[in-house]
């Protein structure tokens, strides 16, 4: 497992930095500045990308907003953080009471979902708010550093981020000719197909690997412009060379297009370049480990591309 390799190297690097233990102190985040205790022990996270950050430096959260479905925290994370966390409910409306009963000393919340309850969260414990849901990939990596600082493991986190960047470079080097392809990722459920635009997390990741996109760029401040519901006709305008689908339903909405002449004439369909990946890993998870999983999937896809 590559993750173990990174961890050991990260720990080694952190040892060097141990001598001058940094004071976590004040953390600047989306909604202001929060004074965080040194090396918080009891951390609650309200988005999956924050688990990614904690797992990167081997810290286990005491509480996770896991939507009451523990298997949404994938084995790659549980291998590191264990299985001891308490579910604090859904990401949309996590239970403030359970959070309070866990006596946390740090809460990491999402800007889009939890801004409205920032005050209530701050009463429970020092809270930092980061833009996970509507942020893109470079932003998600920057957030890693903020979280690293907040949990008093800055050096370890920087080491992990550096290792991650090297891994991603490695993946990029392995994937050749990506610039020749227009690649598009979308999530499909029973009722529709939602394309992730270039400003979304997955869109920016595809861009990092050099793929082109045919979607019109939007400013990406809001969620829906990141995720655009798309009809078959609109898809034919985007007409990607590689179509990557994450299915949340079986049969999914896109399966109903299988017999449509227009669908068959899409470049990706005609050339057999439609690929299914695990929607959960791509769409719900964000962060370094998640990005590496995505990169591994992409590498597989590029090996098969005709």
């Amino acid at each position: 497992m590559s993750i173990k390799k990174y961890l050991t190297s990260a720990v080694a690097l952190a040892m060097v930095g141990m001598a001058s233990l940094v004071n976590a102190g004040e953390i600047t985040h989306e909604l202001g500045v929060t004074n965080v205790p040194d090396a918080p022990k009891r951390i609650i996270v309200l988005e999956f990308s924050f688990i990614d950050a904690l797992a990167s430096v081997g810290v286990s959260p005491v509480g996770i907003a896991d939507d009451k479905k523990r298997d949404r925290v994938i084995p790659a994370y549980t291998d590191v953080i264990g299985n001891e966390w308490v579910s604090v409910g859904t990401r949309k409306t996590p239970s403030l009471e359970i959070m309070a009963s866990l006596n946390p000393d740090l809460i990491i919340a999402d800007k889009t979902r939890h801004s409205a309850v920032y005050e209530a969260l701050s009463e429970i414990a020092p809270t930092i708010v980061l833009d996970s849901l509507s942020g893109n990939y470079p932003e998600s990596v920057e957030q890693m550093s903020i979280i690293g600082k907040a949990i008093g493991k800055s050096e370890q986190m920087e080491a992990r981020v550096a290792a991650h960047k090297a891994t991603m470079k490695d993946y990029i080097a392995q994937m050749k000719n990506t610039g020749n392809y227009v690649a598009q990722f979308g999530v499909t459920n029973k009722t529709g197909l939602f394309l992730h635009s270039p400003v979304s997390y997955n869109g920016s990741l595809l861009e990092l690997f050099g793929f082109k996109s045919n979607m019109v760029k939007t400013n990406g401040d809001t969620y829906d412009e990141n995720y655009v519901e798309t009809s078959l006709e609109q898809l034919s305008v985007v007409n990607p060379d590689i179509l990557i689908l994450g299915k949340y339903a079986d049969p999914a909405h896109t399966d109903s297009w299988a017999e449509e002449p227009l669908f068959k004439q899409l470049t990706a369909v005609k050339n057999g370049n439609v690929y299914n990946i695990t929607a959960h890993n791509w769409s719900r998870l964000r962060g370094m480990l998640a990005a590496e999983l995505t990169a591994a999937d992409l590498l597989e896809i590029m090996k098969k591309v005709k």
Partner: protein
Amino acid sequence: MRHLSLKYITLVVAMCASALLSLSIGPRQDVFLSDLLSAFATDELSINQSIIFDLRLPRTFVAILVGANLGLAGMILQAITRNPLASPSILGINQGAALGMTLGLVFPSIILLNLDFMAILGALIAGALTFSFANSAKNGFNSLRLILAGIAVGAFSYAMVRFTFILDDDLAREVIGWTSGNISASNWQDVKPLIVWTLLGIISSYLLAHKFNLLALGEAASQGLGANPKLIQFMGAVIAATLTAITVAVAGPVMFIGLVIPHFCRRFFGQDHRLLLPATMLAGALLMSLADIVAKLINFPYETPTGIICALIGAPYFLYQSLTVKGAKL
């Protein structure tokens, strides 16, 4: 009479024009109506021909048929209740359909047959509840109570539907997708059953049209003229509920067409249901295809569910209607 035929011709022309306009609008701007014409001449469809023939044409058909069915359903409901406000959305039928689908999405294990059937079941149960509340043993059928019961049934269903919005993102997205009256994904499979049901609806309601006229004279008078009011009301209710349910299954709940159109048509075509019937269907189709054009353009190139547009058009008209309706008719 010549005056009347002129009105029919105007309606037909307007409907065809809006249907053609709707056909020529879409995210692909390189597709034209000429592609449709040439599509009939070739065996192998090009991409452009396929877009207009396989995607836009069935969608426009669905819009027209859904509009026509809802207009007809509204006319029948208003005829049998003698209440100018009776219509699928006011009587809670649409909202019941949405609740049926939502329950199916949240608890997949209770789905009978498929989601469409859940919608139809929800529509029928909501309609039956509303009508049974309006009928009381003590006072008989009460028109005002019908409206109030419908609004209560509708509000109840909608509160439940809204609840799912606070659950999972993906679930909320699916519920919204099913319940917002979205016809952008229509295909020929949707059109076929709609045509069959529409034809059945036309035939059966045309046969009843004269009886509806008698019913308008009042129950006692119609009985004197040889009609059985209870039977006519029951048959009318079944036809209207079926027509609504079938549109819900294809397009989701589309609000207010059944309310606005019959009222509007009565002003221009009089009270004779035999003349009203084609007029309400044509006007319903016209309104729905206009709404579809707006739905395509309002946030171009992205789409807005047509049902939402219909609600935005229909609700102010309902206000106008509620202000102008004569107290006696309530």
